[in-house]
């Protein structure tokens, strides 16, 4: 009660700014008068009586301060006072304030930008309830040299019964033709087991999900669509439920719409942007019979039982695998070493970008730190100019704590202004920055400046303000009073301690920038090596356009059901493509044949004469192409012959293999004439007729993988690509291709037109992104470090003007003066570089996974970076050094 009353009175005083100074003054006066009278009565002389009264009363200043503190809220009042004072100071030296605020703004802005990406991608990677329980299940056959071979239906049932998981869901997918709307479209779809939605904890925003107990063989004829598809293709029709949807000629019924923010946790951008969900048990047509060794290449996503760690689940799973191997020795031969791995879902979504993002966050953190060091340097320079002010204030009785607080208020205010400016810049450039991010980044759409990002910005701002404010504040308050005051008019002369602090700051800056520059250098070299890698094919002037032949579940509606039906269409398509303007060469192939596009098209490989050796066949990448493909991409033939037009649907099945495949499966024999099968259902053997050179069509960084090329006329590939070479008009061509394709079959969607140069640069985009950003940061750091050393050396020179004057007067050579100053700068740079090299070695080993072709200790990078840094330091020192050299001894000495 009394606390409240006291608080209210103080609040009233504070709000009205009312100060009863007069009352205290009168009371003090009266008090002293009474005490003096008392002392007089005791027989003191008048002057002494007065003196004793004052002494007894105590220090009026302190009492008045206490009294004032009682009247209002002293903490807030001093804070406001300090803020007002600081703002006045900034207004008085706008140059300093602008530079400091801008430095911090850029630092905070950049750090917050990177953090917002990290926040969306790494911290909130999975927007599902209890994301830590979600895992991906991968089957490997290390003995057969195969990874991620997929799961068979009996194995799926084993996993469901194992007691390790709450849910095990199978997720397959791809793309289908959506027809019926204005333009046939190709949409990404997922076929999932019905427990998918409960596992991910998602409910449709409209309608219902599939019946979880659905045991329909094959596909149910129900579909859910994404919010995006609903709004785009159906105009957000409120009566969408029950409408029919034609996917690859099959008729589906829409039973629900998924919520807007929902994305499948898939690995590819395409899968994350799924538009249609279908349900299937993967048993019954069109799925193959559920045999143990009939592996479906599917993603298996599961939710662990609550409380179970991934490691514990893995050990239970290992036991299960061991017992199954014993139970079914024929299906799991020991030499294939079947193994089932659990990968945390988060890992599988963000795994490949985590290292890059952490590196970027680290790099931007270093830039912010360097920015702080620079501002600290600026503040120190100002502090030395304000040394006298501080000294006088301390001499007048200002407490040291109070001075530190005031200086910290100044630096925090600077940093807050910087932080606000930084966020403003970030908001302003948001759209531009988002476009810089490579599209392959998971959860790109979820990057936003939300509360946690703002909180991070605030924390970074406060930390930054404290970092760059503390050293100057402590320094300024630890002045040697007598020394400072004795210096009379030359208040700008800082103490040796201050000079030392500035040197330490510059060394820190150099060390930090060296670390950043080494990181940038290594990334640059990796990128360059990848860029210069021998591709093995020629991407120039080539464009690939995709089209998709429908695969209806009902075989009677499939007009491209057999190769005899499909081949004439392909021939017509190829003929028409050759007539397009600018086209010199044309070829067709499966979309997996587009280099570097990450489409997988793997089939189990059965070698003639070795089929019984190994029940778990290795998987091999298969491409279906027309004969012109190799010439078009300039992939050279090594042995045998290429595919020919005569290798058509009526001719015996033939294949061309790459060198890696020849090396892997016939290390000591000639592969020509050997026979094999890749699609187990087909009875005919395929004869190897040629070996082509390896090309980096799978990935730029990876080694070549075994590949097999079949004639497109002999297979029934549905996911097709048209390859065109020539002087192409990349803007007009896609529409022209579509027109031609649809002149043959108007139901076919044509999409995904890309030049191979674009494909190539897209496959480098993530590396390019991290390289560019780190390089940008490194250059910024270098600039800041250069400015830092320039400022410090200038300061030291101006400090030593007098000394230099004396030296010159005593006959020192001007060249010698230059040398002394340069040496001073160089010493700083070298100390910084030495520290930085140690840091860079640690960092470069941590980022080894991001490098390609260079070792983390790459001497060239380290030497070059050190040289660049030294040169920058020398240039930065040269300007003040020249000034030192030109000191006029007369002028310098006249100051005395």
């Amino acid at each position, binding site marked *: 009660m009394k606390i409240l009353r006291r608080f209210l009175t103080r609040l009233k005083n504070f709000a009205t700014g009312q100060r009863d100074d007069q009352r205290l003054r*009168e009371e003090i006066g009266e008090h002293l008068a009474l005490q003096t009278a008392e002392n007089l009565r005791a027989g003191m002389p008048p002057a002494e009586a007065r003196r004793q009264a004052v002494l007894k009363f105590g220090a009026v200043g302190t*009492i008045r301060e206490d009294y004032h503190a009682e009247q209002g809220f002293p903490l807030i009042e001093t804070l406001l006072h300090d803020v007002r004072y600081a703002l006045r100071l900034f207004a008085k030296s706008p140059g300093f304030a602008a530079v400091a605020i801008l430095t911090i703004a850029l630092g905070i802005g950049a750090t917050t930008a990177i953090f917002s990406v990290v926040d969306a991608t790494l911290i909130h990677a999975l927007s599902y309830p209890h994301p830590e329980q979600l895992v991906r299940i991968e089957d490997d056959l290390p003995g057969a040299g195969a990874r991620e071979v997929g799961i068979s239906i009996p194995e799926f049932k084993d996993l469901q019964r194992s007691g390790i998981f709450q849910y095990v869901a199978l997720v397959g997918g791809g793309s289908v033709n959506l027809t019926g709307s204005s333009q046939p479209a190709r949409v990404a779809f997922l076929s999932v087991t019905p427990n998918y939605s409960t596992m991910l904890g998602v409910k449709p925003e409209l309608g219902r999900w599939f019946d979880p107990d659905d045991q329909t063989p094959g596909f149910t004829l129900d579909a859910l669509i994404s919010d995006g598809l609903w709004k785009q293709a159906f105009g957000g029709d409120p009566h969408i439920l029950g409408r029919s949807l034609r996917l690859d000629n099959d008729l589906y019924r829409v039973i629900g719409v998924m919520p807007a923010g929902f994305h499948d946790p898939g690995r590819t951008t395409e899968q994350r942007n799924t538009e249609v969900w279908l349900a299937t048990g993967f048993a019954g047509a069109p799925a193959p019979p559920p045999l143990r060794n009939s592996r479906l290449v599917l993603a298996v996503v599961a939710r662990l039982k609550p409380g179970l760690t991934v490691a514990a689940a893995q050990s239970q799973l290992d036991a299960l695998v061991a017992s199954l191997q014993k139970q079914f020795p024929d299906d799991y031969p020991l030499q294939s070493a079947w193994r089932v791995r659990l990968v945390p879902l988060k890992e599988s979504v963000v795994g490949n970008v985590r290292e890059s993002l952490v590196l970027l966050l680290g790099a931007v953190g270093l830039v912010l730190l360097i920015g702080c060091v620079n501002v600290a340097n600026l503040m120190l320079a100002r502090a030395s100019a304000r040394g006298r002010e501080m000294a006088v204030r301390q001499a007048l009785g200002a407490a040291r704590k109070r001075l530190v607080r005031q200086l910290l208020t100044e630096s925090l205010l600077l940093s807050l202004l910087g932080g606000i400016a930084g966020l403003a810049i970030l908001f302003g450039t948001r759209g531009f920055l988002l476009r810089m991010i490579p599209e392959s980044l998971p959860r790109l759409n979820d990057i936003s400046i939300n509360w946690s990002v703002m909180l991070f910005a605030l924390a970074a701002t406060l930390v930054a303000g404290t970092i760059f404010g503390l050293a100057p504040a402590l320094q300024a308050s630890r002045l040697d009073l007598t020394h400072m005051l004795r210096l009379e008019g030359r208040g700008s002369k800082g103490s040796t301690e201050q000079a030392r602090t500035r040197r330490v700051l510059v060394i820190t800056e150099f060390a930090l920038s060296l670390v950043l520059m080494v990181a940038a250098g290594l990334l640059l070299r990796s990128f360059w090596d990848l860029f210069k890698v021998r591709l093995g094919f020629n991407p120039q002037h080539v464009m690939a356009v995709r089209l998709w032949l429908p695969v209806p579940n009902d075989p009677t509606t499939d007009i491209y059901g057999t190769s005899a039906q499909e081949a004439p269409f392909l021939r017509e398509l190829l003929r028409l493509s050759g007539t397009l303007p600018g086209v010199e060469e044309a070829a067709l192939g499966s979309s997996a044949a587009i280099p570097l596009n990450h489409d997988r098209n793997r089939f189990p490989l059965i070698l003639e004469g070795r089929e019984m050796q190994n029940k778990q066949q290795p998987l091999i990448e298969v491409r279906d192409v027309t004969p012109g493909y190799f010439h078009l991409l300039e992939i050279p033939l090594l042995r045998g012959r290429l595919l020919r037009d005569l290798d058509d649907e009526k001719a015996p099945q033939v294949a061309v293999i790459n060198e890696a495949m020849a090396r892997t499966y016939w290390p000591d024999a000639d592969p020509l004439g050997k026979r094999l099968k890749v699609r187990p259902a087909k009875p005919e053997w395929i004869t190897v007729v040629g070996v082509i050179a390896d090309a980096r069509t799978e990935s730029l960084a990876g080694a070549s993988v075994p590949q097999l090329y079949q004639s497109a006329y002999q297979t029934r590939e549905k996911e097709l690509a048209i390859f065109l070479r020539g002087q192409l008009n990349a803007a007009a061509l896609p529409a022209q291709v579509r027109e031609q394709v649809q002149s043959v079959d108007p139901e076919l969607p044509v999409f995904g037109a890309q030049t191979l140069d674009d494909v190539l640069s897209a496959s480098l985009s993530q590396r390019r992104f991290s390289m560019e950003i780190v390089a940008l940061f490194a250059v910024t750091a270098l600039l800041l470090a250069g400015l830092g050393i320039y400022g410090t050396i200038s300061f030291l020179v101006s400090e030593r003007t007098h000394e230099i004057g004396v030296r010159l007067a005593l006959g020192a050579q001007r060249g010698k003066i230059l040398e002394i100053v340069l040496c001073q700068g160089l010493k700083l740079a070298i100390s910084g570089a030495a520290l930085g090299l140690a840091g860079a070695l640690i960092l470069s080993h941590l980022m080894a996974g991001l490098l390609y072709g260079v070792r983390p200790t790459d001497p060239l990078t380290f030497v070059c970076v050190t040289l660049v840094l030294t040169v920058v330091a020398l240039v930065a020192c040269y300007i003040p050094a020249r000034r030192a050299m030109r000191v006029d001894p007369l002028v310098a000495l006249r100051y005395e």
Partner: protein
Amino acid sequence: MKRKTDVQQGTLALMVLRTLDVLGPQHGYGIARRIEQISGDLLVVNQGTLYPILLKLEHEGAIASEWGASENNRRARFYRLTQVGRKQLQTETQDWEQTTAIIARFFEAKAEDLS
């Protein structure tokens, strides 16, 4: 040498209340003087520190003040105890007595009492 005691704010406030209770309305100097007399040389306190405490007590509503004329006929601020202050003094006196009684008992206790 006998150490002179530093006085805590709360104790000083209690002394102020007690002084006003016994002597009726007083100005600042009168209160200071009285506290000095009673505590003797043991308590050395700058008289000025009294004024922030007086203001605090007034904010809390324990005392009220108004201008009046002092002994030498000058304007002085006179403080008097309010109803709230009287109650506060009562409870604080009780608390204080209780505390000292407990502490005193501890000092009187002998080893055999504690066994």
